[in-house]
């Protein structure tokens, strides 16, 4: 028993991720934490997407279940679980069963290497980013098999579209990622890294997010990734595989109930996963904003208060809306519920001001805040952009993003090696040319 406690406590003093330190207990705890956090994030995204889309379209969105529809996702989940589970008659039963699980597994396994903080990742792999790209590309297998197993026309077309789309955009995405990885090698030993934590550490060491590195190359790479990741996750404006006006629901037309909800879960966690790749590679991962402009202990302290303040603000928003609730007795429970929700948020905010908590949640907060920004972008795209046509989609992927990515990669490499290029290529060639001209004259 004592040995067990010691085993558990031994990790607390280490500065590594539990997977790297080989501590099974904390690895399990982290896996559970990430899983629970992800589920909460997906539920929150469900509500936020409907609310934000509604407000963008001057509607109210869900208002009935809970105050401001806060309990709507839970009601939806219950409805989905209680729904009849239909398997089409001509479907390939086994594959129809397996497909949603492939998608969910691919979407969740990715989070093994996502770095929420210098030690807050389940494990740190030598091949982190490669692992993330590889495993997230497995979800296309699930989508393709789902479409095929349904034995129906719309799902099959959706599956074909999605496989073509995801394979095409993976190429451009990979090129953008490579150019960011190239930037990690700009140190004395000139060895780069594929490890997710190593990439953020490299940005910290170079004192600059890769977004602003080699301006404008970093921003272009980020832009390519930001476009390709929307296509990878099959979201608007690239949601052709599930275009509801043409294919009813694309590859998951024949799915219902629990298995449909797995697709839903996978879609949102894949969105979070690719956003966390973007955050890690270009937006400095868990690093707080302006690390070199506003440095020093005072600024560190000031920034460490922001998580608490953010939660207090959310709580204050809830209280404000509690005051605006209709005063009718029918709304009594909802008003109390909203006030309670605000109180919980404010309490979390207050807890985050405590020094031991403050020191530990800072990096997780910044990482999550950046990812949340991407989530808002996703919703924003969906609210504003019309859907692409399929040939336009392919054109953007192959004729715009891919050449840009190649050029960008070459430019990044040349710029990173600029002194070598100058002394070993430009100067000798120029001298030779000058010599040639001199001889001609």
């Amino acid at each position, binding site marked *: 028993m004592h040995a067990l406690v010691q085993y558990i406590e031994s990790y607390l003093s280490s500065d590594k991720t539990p997977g790297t330190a*080989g501590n099974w207990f904390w690895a399990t705890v982290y896996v559970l934490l990430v899983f629970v956090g992800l589920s909460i994030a997906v539920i929150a995204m469900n509500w936020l997407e409907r609310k934000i889309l509604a407000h963008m379209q001057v509607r109210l969105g869900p208002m009935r279940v809970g105050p401001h529809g806060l309990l709507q996702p839970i009601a939806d989940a219950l409805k989905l679980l209680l729904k009849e589970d239909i398997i089409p008659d001509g479907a390939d039963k*086994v594959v129809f069963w397996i497909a949603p699980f492939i998608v969910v597994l691919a979407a969740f396994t990715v989070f093994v290497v996502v770095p929420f903080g210098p030690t807050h990742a389940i494990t740190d792999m030598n091949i982190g980013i*490669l692992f993330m790209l590889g495993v997230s590309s497995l979800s296309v297998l699930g989508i393709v098999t789902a479409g095929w197993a349904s034995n129906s026309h719309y799902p099959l077309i959706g*599956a*074909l579209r999605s496989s073509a789309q995801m394979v095409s955009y993976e190429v451009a995405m990979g090129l953008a990622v490579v150019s960011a990885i190239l930037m990690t090698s700009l140190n004395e030993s000139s060895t780069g890294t594929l490890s997710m934590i190593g990439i953020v550490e490299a940005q910290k060491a170079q004192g600059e997010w890769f977004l602003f590195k080699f301006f404008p190359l970093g921003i272009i790479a980020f832009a390519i990734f930001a476009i390709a990741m929307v296509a990878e996750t099959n979201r608007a404006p690239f949601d052709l595989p599930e275009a509801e006006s043409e294919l009813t629901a694309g590859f998951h037309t024949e799915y219902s109930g629990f298995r449909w909800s797995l697709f839903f879960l996978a879609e949102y966690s894949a969105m979070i996963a690719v956003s966390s790749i973007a955050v890690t590679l270009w937006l400095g991962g868990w690093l707080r904003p302006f690390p070199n402009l506003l440095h020093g202990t005072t600024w560190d302290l000031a920034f460490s208060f922001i998580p608490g303040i953010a939660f207090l603000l959310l709580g204050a928003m809830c209280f404000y809306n509690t005051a605006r609730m209709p005063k009718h007795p029918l709304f009594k429970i909802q008003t109390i519920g909203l006030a309670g929700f605000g109180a919980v948020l404010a309490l979390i905010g207050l807890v985050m001001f405590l020094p031991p908590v403050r020191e530990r949640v800072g990096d997780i907060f910044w990482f999550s805040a950046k990812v949340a920004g991407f989530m808002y972008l996703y919703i924003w795209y969906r609210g504003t952009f019309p859907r692409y046509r399929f040939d336009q989609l392919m054109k953007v992927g192959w004729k715009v993003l891919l050449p840009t990515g190649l050029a960008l990669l070459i430019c990044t490499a040349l710029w990173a090696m600029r002194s070598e290029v100058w002394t070993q290529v430009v100067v000798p060639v120029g001298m030779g040319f000058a010599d040639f001209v001199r001889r001609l004259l």
Partner: protein
Amino acid sequence: MNPQIAGNPPVATPYFFYGLAAIMIIGGILVITRKNAVHSALALITTLLAQAALYLMLYAPFVAGVQIILYAGGIMVLFLFVIMLISIERAEKERQFNKQWLVGIAAAAALGGLFITVYTATTKGRVLFPEGRTSYVDMQNTQGIANLLFDQHGGTYMFAFEIASLLLLVAIIGAVVMAKKRI
């Protein structure tokens, strides 16, 4: 480099190996026996993923990553795509094995006999293939491979790498020429 990791050998390696090996063999058998090509492809994907796990056990994480991203995520999607393009209903009702299957099995059995002979052969009292322990070596695998491929001084395989890029170019052109109706 990291003494604390080096002190922690992975647990239960034999169980993982036998489990993954069983998955791979079963997957392989399913690949060559299923009637439906999609089922075969799924079995092959399982085999490939189990093999990626075996690469991790052999401390070859980069090869494992390439295996997942290229084989499972790239090549197999291509296979599934093509299977869906050319799916014909009657394919499942036809004969699955060709007429020379007996000869094929016999040839494979002969090859298997050869394997057994080689793997159990002894020369001068010692086995031909070493029972080398796969001991833990801590190193930066990806950087090591990159050094072998690209390094100016030790880049043994740089030329081969360039040739491989030419091979891929030829493959792209070949695939387009083959698959396109009118060029």
